[in-house]
């Protein structure tokens, strides 16, 4: 068999589509297994979005409105790498999150918590050649959701990455280390236990900015290439 360009994830890396504790998977998870598709040009290419022009404050979510948002200012940074630790250069990183009170700037979010006119919660960054990216934002709050009685989402930031190919597309969520709500969250716990902690950022004292902001580090590892790509 011809070796493929991108290695396929081993069992246990990603959540199963059907995860009964996360109620809305019941009517949305496909019941049939995905058909394994040999990787052609359609799968090993993908949007790189290198021509996308990013505005000056897209990676500083505290400077996108007229004033400063309320909440705890934080730095969130890390690297976009493949499984072998090689950087994914110039990757576009997209994030979104709720405000410090636990409310999204979104018409569908009806949580009884204040909106912050100075915080919209969306950001984009372009990683450098070493895959390094950085955001300045506000620590998101926890918020209730209706999945089950007294259900609360742990604080999280949504991340969207393309990587080098259609095959490497990933949307995920970053959590904060040691959050007591993690133990109760069906979305976080949908990930097999051995891989779950990869979704927690680490507190990064070295990058903390004195008198200004704590820092968290979140490295994102996308699928790696086989040693000899199929031509």
């Amino acid at each position, binding site marked *: 068999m011809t070796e493929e360009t991108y290695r396929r994830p081993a069992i246990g890396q990603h959540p199963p589509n059907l995860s009964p504790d996360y109620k809305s998977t019941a009517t*949305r998870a496909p019941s049939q297994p995905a058909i394994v598709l040999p990787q052609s040009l359609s799968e090993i290419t993908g949007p790189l979005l290198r021509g996308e022009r990013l505005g000056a404050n897209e990676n500083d979510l505290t400077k996108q409105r007229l004033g400063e948002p309320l909440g705890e200012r934080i730095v969130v940074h890390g690297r976009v790498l493949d499984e072998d630790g090689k950087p994914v250069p110039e990757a576009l990183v997209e994030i979104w999150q709720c405000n410090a009170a636990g409310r999204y700037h979104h018409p569908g979010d009806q949580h009884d918590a204040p909106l912050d006119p100075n915080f919209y919660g969306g950001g984009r960054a372009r990683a450098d050649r070493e895959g390094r990216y950085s955001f300045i934002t506000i620590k998101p709050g926890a918020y209730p959701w209706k999945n089950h009685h007294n259900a609360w989402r742990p604080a999280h930031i949504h991340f969207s990455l393309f990587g080098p190919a259609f095959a490497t597309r990933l949307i995920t969520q970053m959590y904060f280390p040691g959050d007591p709500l993690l133990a109760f969250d069906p979305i976080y716990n949908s990930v097999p236990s051995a891989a779950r902690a990869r979704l927690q950022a680490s507190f990064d004292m070295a990058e903390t900015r004195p008198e200004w902001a704590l820092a968290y580090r979140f490295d994102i590892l996308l699928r790696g290439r086989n040693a000899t790509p199929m031509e």
Partner: protein
Amino acid sequence: MARGLTPSQTVGPFYWGTLVASYRADLAPPGVAGERLELAVSLHDAEGAAVPDGVIEIWQANAHGRYNHPDDRRNLPLDAGFEGFGRASTDPTGVARFATVRPGRVPWPKGGLQAAHVNVSVFARGLLNRLATRLYFDGDPALADDPVLTLVVPERRATLIAKRDDAGAWRLPIHLGGPRETVFFDV
């Protein structure tokens, strides 16, 4: 540092500010070569209800069959104005619309050409992983021996084939489950 792949999580319902604010549903501005198409991709849950909070992304070759990507090294023309990527959220009726061009055919690793197709990613609340599928075009004579369609049992192939509606748009219903469940691919 080798911590393993970062696991997938759901896009959730509140992606709007980032993913929609920077979306592009029109892939083919004036000047791009090829037959103009409107795609209307609808998303339905296992009970047939419209999914109004999904995100559909498409990735396709240009009209010459060339992907705008460094790993497509074939000597075919690139279109300056055509990247081949589109993203749109589904509307209250579950439909995401794109304006694009008909993609050219691209090769298959074992030889021959694939039928013209658009690669599709589906994200939504309740989906913990990206679902990958394809959109083919009804009436294309190349469908008969497309190497991907032949991987699919005949009775499910129609889930991948868009049909033209009376207004000229190519409609592809994507069913996440139920009797008409769409074929999804492990890419």
